[in-house]
């Protein structure tokens, strides 16, 4: 019985109240949402919800907030098209619909006892932020934490204040890079793979979690394999069109996988043959 109720909750959007919305970087907003009526929520880092704008459409968005938070859910949305633009223009007090959480999430259990390398490209940091929150609050379970984060330009760097505070921690290193920058940028310019070499990664005792454009994840994975990391220790999060998140609409297929239910996180050895092929 409880299973059936649970299932239906995932099939029909539930009302969530917008508590706050603010702009992170140009065109990218973070929303905190509260179930209406109030119930507790829980998700695993890397899971996503289907966010529904009344009568307009529904899109998959990963939770970007802290997994210990059970009263609200936080999402970070980049306005790229019709539904995400609407999501980014809601106001506190508005209602949006939510179904979820869906997907498998990052391998935080498997990574226990290991160093963790988090590699994010662009908006890819949003679905990885819950991982970092978790690693920090369970620091004794993990070894060294390294975050390598690349964006196109310095003004596209998300969560700047948090990045600075994470970098101050003894158990965590934050390395930033941008594709291009003006003369006021003193940091690294180049692709994320360039930062891997000097990050002091122990390829044998590190679990990597990467999220960003496919091409970035491909170069990252092969870069890590080159320094001796096992493909099975490298995890990537895939993005595909999604209409149902239930395994029924077929839209999110990626070779044999349904990204909505088998993913979105895959060990690289599960998908390496597909990564080599164009237009899968």
């Amino acid at each position, binding site marked *: 019985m409880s299973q059936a109720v649970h*299932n*239906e909750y*995932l*099939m*029909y*959007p539930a*009302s969530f*109240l917008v508590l706050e919305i603010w702009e992170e970087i140009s065109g990218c907003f973070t929303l905190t949402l509260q179930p*209406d009526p109030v119930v507790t929520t829980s998700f695993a880092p890397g899971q996503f919800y289907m966010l*529904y704008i*009344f*009568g*307009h*459409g*529904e899109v998959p968005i990963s939770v970007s907030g802290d997994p210990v938070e059970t009263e609200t859910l936080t999402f970070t949305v980049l306005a*790229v*098209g019709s539904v995400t633009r609407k999501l980014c223009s809601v106001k506190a*007090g*508005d*209602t949006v*619909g939510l179904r979820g959480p869906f997907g498998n999430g990052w391998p935080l259990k498997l990574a226990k006892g290991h160093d963790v390398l988090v590699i994010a490209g662009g908006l890819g940091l949003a679905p990885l932020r819950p991982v970092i929150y978790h690693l920090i609050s369970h620091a004794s379970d993990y070894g060294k934490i390294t975050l390598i984060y690349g964006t196109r330009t310095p003004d596209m760097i998300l969560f700047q204040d948090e990045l600075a505070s994470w970098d101050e921690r003894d158990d965590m290193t934050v390395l930033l890079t941008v594709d291009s920058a003006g003369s006021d940028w003193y940091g690294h310019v180049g692709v994320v793979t360039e930062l891997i070499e000097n990050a002091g990664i122990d390829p044998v005792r590190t679990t990597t979690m990467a999220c960003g454009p496919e091409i970035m994840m491909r170069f990252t994975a092969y870069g890590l394999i080159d320094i001796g990391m096992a493909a099975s220790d490298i995890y990537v999060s895939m*993005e*595909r*069109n999604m*209409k*149902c998140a*239930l*395994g*029924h*609409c*077929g*839209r999110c*297929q990626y*070779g*044999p996988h*349904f990204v909505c*239910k088998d993913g979105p996180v895959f060990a690289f050895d599960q998908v390496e*043959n597909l990564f*080599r*092929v*164009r*237009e*899968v």
Partner: protein
Amino acid sequence: MTPPRPLYRLDRNDFGILLNILKEKGYLTVGPTRRDGAILYGALESVDDLPIGWTDEQEAGTYRLKCRDDDALFGYNVGPHSWKKYLFPSKTKLWSATKKGSGFEIDRETDTPPKYAFIGVRACELHAIQIQDKVFMGGTYQDPVHAGRRRDCLIIAVNCAQAANTCFCTSMQTGPKVDNGYDIVLTEIIDKARHYFVIEAGSDRGAAIVKKLPVSPVQQTDMDAAAACVENAEKQMGRKVDMTDIKDILTRNYDNKRWAELEKKCLACGNCTMACPTCFCSNVEDITDLGAEHAERWRSWGSCFTMDFSYIHGGSVRPSIGSRYRQWLMHKLATWLDQFGTSGCVGCGRCITWCPVGIDLTEEVKAICDNEEGDPSG
């Protein structure tokens, strides 16, 4: 193991009684009818609605009806429709929502389907229905529309006594003999003297119906005649395809040159996916009224041949038609096995017949197997 149920004979002239019993039991009887120059599934009011005395001729890209020289009720093969039109309707409202206070309230669409009796389900089609059962009901989430329609649906299957030129169920091991999942199965026998059916129940529901029919016991000669019908269909099987190791072969041929040739040939019209009895992909559309007080979610058949299907911000994942055909064929014959433990193709040949340019799945498979580009040793 349930013991085999007894076989009976049902005279052709008593076939109408079967339909009447089903109607009395509250079933909506649907089955093959002749309309618009094809055999299409629709409501059967009486036996006369069946395409009596008609047959079809099928080839890659062509379909034609022809008169038979007898009055067979089921003397043809599968047409452009499949039973998915009833179990997975081409357009369904999933729910509606109304604004209420600051939020909204979801009104679950309660699909109130009729109790269907499918008349004349072929072996391959029965396999297709069971494949869609796995898709819609075999996972964590049950699709309420499919599950609701499937629950009470009664299946009266028919063994094929002939095969179309586009059929290859023997290669897919899905026919021509109906093997399970039916409530009643019929074999139509026409010889010089008689026109009758060998009838067998496959479920308690089916047995209860057979009990009410004016049937007589079968003789060995009837059973031989029924077996001969199926053998005839096997012999006529128009196409064959070797599916040994097909999953591994396709998986190592993502870069085969054949895909580029399909790029030039395939129109990406999606006919194959609409006609295919197992294709299950869908589109979802959210709509609202002008006052934005009322919203609805609709689901409709989708096709992996459209650009839109795999669209993500920045463009389609599969912009080339070759990659879309590859996705379709790979899914049918390789990745379906990973996903659902069964092939996604039942060998019905619809995609071959209804392709406007006559692209033939069996030919494509053969071309790839004969011209492997990946290293066959792994």
